[in-house]
Structure formats: C-alpha cells, structure tokens
C-alpha cells in the first residue's frame, strides 16, 4: 500500500478503493465496498442485458454481477488472474442494492484529502461527467472518482459519452 498523501493533514481524509480498467484508474468510496471476491463460477442468466454477467453464489446468497467494462462502454476482455469482483452496496431509488462489479484488477486503497479532489471538467471529457464525482492526481496519474450510485444503476446510460455502435446495443437492452 502506497501512502500517497503525507502532506499536512489540513482537510478530512477519505478512503477510496482504486481499480483499473483499460489502463485507466478509477476509484470508489471505500465505505460502499463490502468485499472483493476472486472470480468464481458465474451463472449466466439467459435473455439478460449484455452488461449483466450473471449471478454468483455469495455464501448461500445470490449476487448479481455487472461487467464494468461493458457497462462503461469498453470492449469486452477475457478474464485474467487479476480480474475480480468488487461487492458493493449502492442506493438505487432509496433501495439498498448489493451488486458485484467485475473489473480488470483492484489496485489499492487511497487516502485522499477532500480538497485534493478536483471537479471534473465537463467539456472535452471522454466520460459522461454525471458518473464522475471528481478527479484526483496521484503520482502523475489521474484517478477518476466514480459516483457508483449513478455509474452502476442500470437505468443510466453508459459511462462513455462517445457512443459506439456496440454500446448502443447495450443501452437498448438495458432499458
């Protein structure tokens, strides 16, 4: 674990879990994360939207898993040894929903002072700004902090604002 912020503790520290997809770094509020699972056998639900990977057995309960890549409008990729499922609680329409999201790899827990977080520039961004709570620069890397309630709720459009053809299909199915 890399301590990234050893400067004076002026603002409140918040912890974020960062993960990687397509060489981009994303982060989500660690308090929303319940656990991280290794990729296990996923049972596909026939006739479901493409971004829904299926369901897994989470100690006797059923956990729906979203393919974060497809949800974010990225190309599908075969799972690797680094692939894992982030189990999180998100609130959709005042209802607490437990979801899993398959990501390429989980990196680390970042402690970030709240004033370090910059508002994301809405113009010229590749990503749909509604899903991004802010940006933070760590070791020359930009980390996008996600608003997971919006990013993973199924009603919303994909994260990528540039709509590709394959993504259009995903969206149609997700409605």
């Amino acid at each position: 674990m890399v301590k990234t912020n050893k400067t004076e503790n002026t603002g409140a520290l918040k912890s974020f879990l960062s993960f990687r997809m397509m060489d981009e770094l994303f982060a989500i509020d660690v308090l929303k994360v319940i656990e991280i699972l290794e990729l296990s056998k996923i049972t596909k639900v026939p006739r479901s939207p493409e971004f829904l990977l299926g369901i897994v057995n989470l100690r006797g309960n059923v956990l729906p898993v979203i393919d974060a890549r497809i949800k974010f409008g990225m190309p599908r990729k075969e799972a690797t040894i680094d692939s894992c499922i982030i189990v999180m609680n998100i609130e959709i329409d005042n209802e607490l929903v437990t979801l899993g999201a398959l990501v390429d790899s989980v990196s680390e827990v970042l402690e970030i002072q709240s004033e370090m977080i910059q508002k994301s520039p809405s113009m010229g961004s590749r990503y749909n700004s509604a899903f991004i709570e802010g940006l933070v620069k760590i070791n020359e890397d930009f980390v996008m902090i996600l608003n997971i309630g919006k990013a993973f709720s199924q009603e919303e459009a994909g994260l990528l604002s540039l709509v590709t053809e394959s993504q259009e299909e995903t969206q149609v199915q997700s409605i």
Partner: protein
Amino acid sequence: MENLISVFVSEANELLEDLEKALLQLEKDKQNKVGISEVFRIMHSLKGAANMFGFEAINQLTHDLETIYQAIRDNGVNLNQEIFNVTLKCLDHLKDLLNNRVIQDGSLQKTHDELLADIHRLSNHIKSAQVETVTTGLTNGGSYASYYILFKPNPKVLLNGTNTLYLVDELLSLGQGVSLPHFSESIAWSQLEADHSYTDFEVILYTDKSEQDILEVFMFVEAESVIEIAKLSDSNLLGEQKKVEHLKSAHQFKKVGKEHILSTLSAAESKTVAVTTDLQRTKSAANVRVSSERLDELMNLVSELVTTQASLSMLAERGTSPELTAVAETVEKITRRLRDNAFTMSLVPVENLVVRFQRLVRDLSKDLGKEIEFKAEGTETEIDKSIIEKLVDPLMHLIRNGLDHGIESPNERLKKGKPSKGTILFKSYYSGANVIIEVKDDGAGINVEKVRAKAISKGLISPDVELSEKEITNLIFLPGFSTSDKITGVSGRGVGMDVVRRNIADIRGDVEVFSKIGEGSTFVITLPLTLSIIDGLLVKVGNADYIIPLSLIRKCYEVSTNELASAYNHWITLDGDRTPYFYLRNRFKVKTEAPQHSQAIQIFSHWGNICLIVDRIVGDYQAVLKPLGRPYREQEEFSGATILGDGTVALVIDPIKLIGKLSREDGDKLGVSKN
C-alpha cells in the same frame, strides 16, 4: 421506553383486531353474554396498557366505553344499535389514536371530543334507565337477577295429584337454574308413609322474571306449602359451572340455606377468577411473541442449512464411508423436519384477513344502500405471513368490486327473483401445494358483450378476433379496463383489475374470473403455500442448471432432437395431441452440442398444455428460492435462483411467465396477450 411503546402499539393493534371481531360477532347476537364480556375484557386490557404508556386519550375513551359495557354485562342494560355504532366509531378512532400518543391534529381532537360526548350521552341514558329499574323494584321490568327459592311442599302434596318434580322443572324453565333437593327436616324415620313427600327443594334461579312470576309457579300448592323467595344478587351466580357442581356435591340431600349459598357462590367467584387468570397465564406462556425479523432470520438460516445439507448429501454419495452416509441421511431427515417446522411458524390463518373484510362489507353496503351478507368459509386455512400481507389490497379490491358492481340494489334483485339480500362468499382451501382463495358474489355477473365492446373501443383487442366467453371475461385484468359507466368512490377508477393481477403475480399467484350473467362472478386466486421453498425438477440446458416448479409440470416425455428440428411450426405430437413447444436451447442461446434425445416437459397453463424442451432431467429438488436482485427485476421468466449442493447457482424458471414472454416474441402464436 420507545421500544416498550412499540410493543404496546403492536399488542394494542391486536387487541383492537380482536375487539373488532368480537363486536361484529356481537352485532349478530346482541344478547350474547360471552361476547359482551369479551368486549369488556378487551377494553379493560387496552385501558390498562394505554394508561401505563401515557396514551391519555385512549385511556379516557376506553374508560368511558368500558363503563357502558360493564352496565350491559352486569345490569342487563340492553345493547342497542346506537351503542354499537358508537363503539365501532370509537374503534376506528382508537386506531388513529395509537399512532398519535398525544393528540396534536385538530380534526383528531374534534372526533375525539365528539365521541366522548356521544359516550357520555349514552352512559347518562343508561344510568337513568338503571334508576328506573331500581324504583320499579319488585316488578323487576325484565332485568336479570339471581333468586333463592325454598320450596317445602306439604307432605301430603302428592295425594292431590301434584308432582313436585314438575313444579321444580317449571321453575327451572323460567331461566337458568339449579335445584338442590334435600330431605325435609320434619321427616320422622320411624313412621314413613309411602305416599307422602319428604323432599324439599332449594332452587337458585337466574332469570328476568319478577318474584311474582316465580310465585305463580306454585299457584296450586301455595296455600299448603312453605315457599320462600329471595333475591340474592343482580349478577348471575350460576355463571361458573364448577362452583355450582361443588355446591351440589358438598351438600347432598342436606339443606344448604340461603346465606350459605350466597357466600359459597360469591366466595367461589373470586376463587374462580384466580383460577382463570392462572389459566390465562399458562395460555400466554404457550404462545411466545416473536418479532417477524427474527422469524425471517430463522427462515434464512434454515434455508442455508437446507443448502448445506444438500452439499453434505452429495459428498456422502461420492465418498466411500458408510458412516458418513448414515450421518448425512440423519442430517437430511432432521433438516427436513426443521424446515417444515420453521415454515409452519410463519403460517397464519386467513381468518386474520377476514375480519377486515367483514367490517368493509358492513360499512360499504350501508353506504351503497344494499343489503349484503359476508360469509367466510375455510378461514382456518393457513398461508405464509408475507403472502397474507400482500393479499390485503387485491382482496379488498375484489370485494369492493363485488359490492359495487356485482351485487344489485335490493329492488333490482327482487325483480330478478333473487333474495333481496346479496351474499359475498369468501372461501379458502388447500389444493396440492397451493392455497386457493375464492371471492364469490351472487350479483349481476359480468356482461360478456359489454366487456368485449369495451375492450374493442379501448383498442385492447381487435374487433375481428374470436374469443371464448372465458377469455373475454378475463380481459378485465388488462391495464386500463374499467366497465362501470359511472365512477363511484368505491371502485371504477380504471386502475382496478390489472393492479389486482399484478399484486397477486408478485407473490407468485394467479387470478382468474368465472362469471355467469345474472348469477354472479367468482374470482379464483391460486397462491403458493410459501414463498421461499419450492419443490422443483432440476433440469439441464447446455451446461446450466434450471429448476422448474413441480406443481406446474403435467408430464415429461423423451423426444428425439432431430424430430424437433423437423417439426413444423414448433408443434409436436405427444400422446396423440398436437402440443406447442419452446426449445430452450435456442431460446437461451446455448452454443454447446445438442444431445441426441431431449426432454419435453409439459406445463399446465391457461393456454393449454405447452412443452418446454430441455436437454436432460437430473431429478427432483427442494429449491430454496433466492431473489435474483434488482438488476434482474425485469426478467420475470426467472422467479429466482437456488444454490445447488455443489455451490453452483441454478435459475428457477417461472414457466408461465417464460411461455408468455416467448410466445409474445414469436408474434403471439398462442394468443397469450389476449388473456
């Protein structure tokens, strides 16, 4: 304290439910002493508890009401319709008060004051009536009391042809009574005469007759016999069978005496009270109140145990140790019993529902100016608590519809040659793994032509389709359908039947309507016994496991996969019948190699028998149903998932929903949308 208050509120709600039940019973039979005492008792407990928890308004109201019912119970004051209506109004008000410990709302305060005024008026009325009875004293205008009657006939009474036993019988017929015969004190054992009477009688009689009336019984023997009549008490001393028996056995053939009777029976009264409270205490110990969260937790644990047990059984089968197999079998047996036990815990009789409906029918029929009787059969049938809760709204809707649209006004009914009083019958019973609830009215029935015309005008069906009567009547479940021409406050807002159907579908139930014009309609609701476990058939499609509920499977057939490929328009012939089928491998986009033979699972559905074709049947399986989670909310064709013994997840198919969806995708060749 907050915690205690919430316990009080939940208990109070139960008490109010009981009270409502008792009151509605009482309305049918206003003289029913047991009913009156029950009402009194409930009010009394409510008052005590409300006082303790600072529900001042409830305390006030119940205190005054209680006084009225005490007068009714003890002093024979007549329970009239007015008292009754006020009590019911109070009941509704009490429900509101439970949610408002301190009255803040102005309108609530107003109702409260009005009701208090009503009660005071009634109780003053009763008091003045009581004063009257006291002043009219001896004639005792119809109010009940316990009397002591000593009858010492003249020994020669038999010689006149009088039978003393007949006299005593006549006396007892005046009310509720007990006779205590004894040998007369004047008996001279040395010189007994065979035709003389040596038996005297002491009679305790509880009656509304006056002393004069009692004396009349002895009209012909009065002159030569000793007759003593005395009023013992205004209350019924014979209320407790036990103490009367005690009195009888303790004083066989000896004179008891008025004072002794009075003291024994009154003393015994307090003793029996103590006994009954003891009984009540044991009763409450036999029932333990458990919060529904704990019950849900238990069910979850049991479900997990069932799953784990399945893995254990699988391991035991694979292993070679006979001891392990034996243990696994025992665990399986125990698990099964534990599961059954836990499930019965969450079952509640549908009676809980019925009380609400009784009240609804009573109030609404008065508002609508109709005479309607509500009957309930099979109310002991038990269903899962969570199902019952979700049934209230749809059933309420069906009953309201029956009241409003179904049953005609008394005049109209008489014209049609029906009794002026309409009936709504609520009936529930078990049928296999299902519970059936029927709501039947003997009203006008559904006008098929009207429904059809309406459906066409609303664009729900096209004018040229041929539909059977049953199909047409079931059109009323389509969204946006409401046949009543005028909109009343009770029903007819056009959000009716489709909501009913959806609510029932949410608890894996189904609703159908059968109707005959002029004779009435019957709504039949089919429900699963429990929501969380189903008996299913485990099947394979490709590499994936699926569960199909056994209750919907009619028969299974083996078919050759080639035959399916060459079958025309997805119909195959099974047992000589042409049956439509859906080939799940294609539908689920399975890419693996198809087996040579497939299994056709024939499903019961309202569209006839339809087959789902799967690769292989594994066997039957007790599936603990787990929800798929919100992302899959729209996928109704899967009612959930279950964890198999090896930890993999199998989807539970809802065959009816699946068939409906698939058929619609094919351009609706089965015509499912029409239904």
